């Protein structure tokens, strides 16, 4: 009975002790270190409000480009649609004229 208890105690101790890798560093410690490294490499999110002017240049898009694109798209869409309607109207009117001429 004592022998069994001793075996159980040894087994529990072994389970509680971290397994060491080849280099003598436990995987848990290595993982924690790689997490810390990854965190240090990533840019940290700002802890408070950052004005637009202070945002890194890569994050800034000139507003004028976006405004010009918006207005340009609207103008192109309207012009394209007006052209498309006038073309279709001309087509259908010539077709009507042909059909009516044939009927006479």
């Amino acid at each position, binding site marked *: 009975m004592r022998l069994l208890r001793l075996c159980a105690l040894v087994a529990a101790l072994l389970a509680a002790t971290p397994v060491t890798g080849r280099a003598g560093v436990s995987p848990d410690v290595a993982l924690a270190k790689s997490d810390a490294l990854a965190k240090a490499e990533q840019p940290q999110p700002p802890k408070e409000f950052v004005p637009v002017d202070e945002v890194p240049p890569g994050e800034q898009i000139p507003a004028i480009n976006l405004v010009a694109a*918006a207005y340009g798209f609207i103008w192109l869409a309207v012009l394209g649609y*007006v052209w498309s309607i006038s073309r279709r109207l001309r087509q259908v009117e010539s077709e009507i004229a042909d059909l*009516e001429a044939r009927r006479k």
Partner: protein
Amino acid sequence: MRRLSTPFIGLSAGMLLVAPWIINAAPYESTMGLVQKVFYFHFPSAILFLLAATICGIQSARFLFFKKPSADAWALAAAELGLLFGAMTLVTGPLWARKAWGVWWVWDPRLTSSLLLFLIFAAYLILRKYGGPGSDKLAAGMALFGMGNVPFIYVSVNVWRTLHPMTSVVPTLPTDMGIPLWFCFAAFTMLFLALMNLRATLALQQARVEALYLAEDEA
């Protein structure tokens, strides 16, 4: 009808040419700066997008329940303009959002339901073009669902508080910003009505061509 549309298109085109100067004179919004100027074209496009859906739905109901062929022509015209103004809304919105919110798109109720309405218009027009006989009635039913989406789109920003501004923004605008906004709105509305008039004329003329071909076949 066609003669009536031409001066309105000319007038609205003139107003839209002048609009950038009037918009430029308006003060900058304090947090968004220059990019907020997209609003002066985005808002009228969005309202007319919803108006197109409403007109399309009402005319489709007239066509379905009262068998009015002219109502079908107006519904078709409204659907095509819904697609046009929907595209304007869905393109200008993300261009503004990229600067104001930092993202092109978010799946919030206003944006998602607007995209859904745009897709309903696209489906309506595809069905009309390639659906074959009976597709006019099927498309009219679809337009009713599109119209049902309109109140949902409008109130969505008030019910679910998301990134999109609420409907209370426009009535509380200062006069300096209100003048260019309503100027652009007037120009867009005139353009919308003139284009719808032209498109409905085209649909009626196409129906006339079909009737003439049928008469020729019978003779």
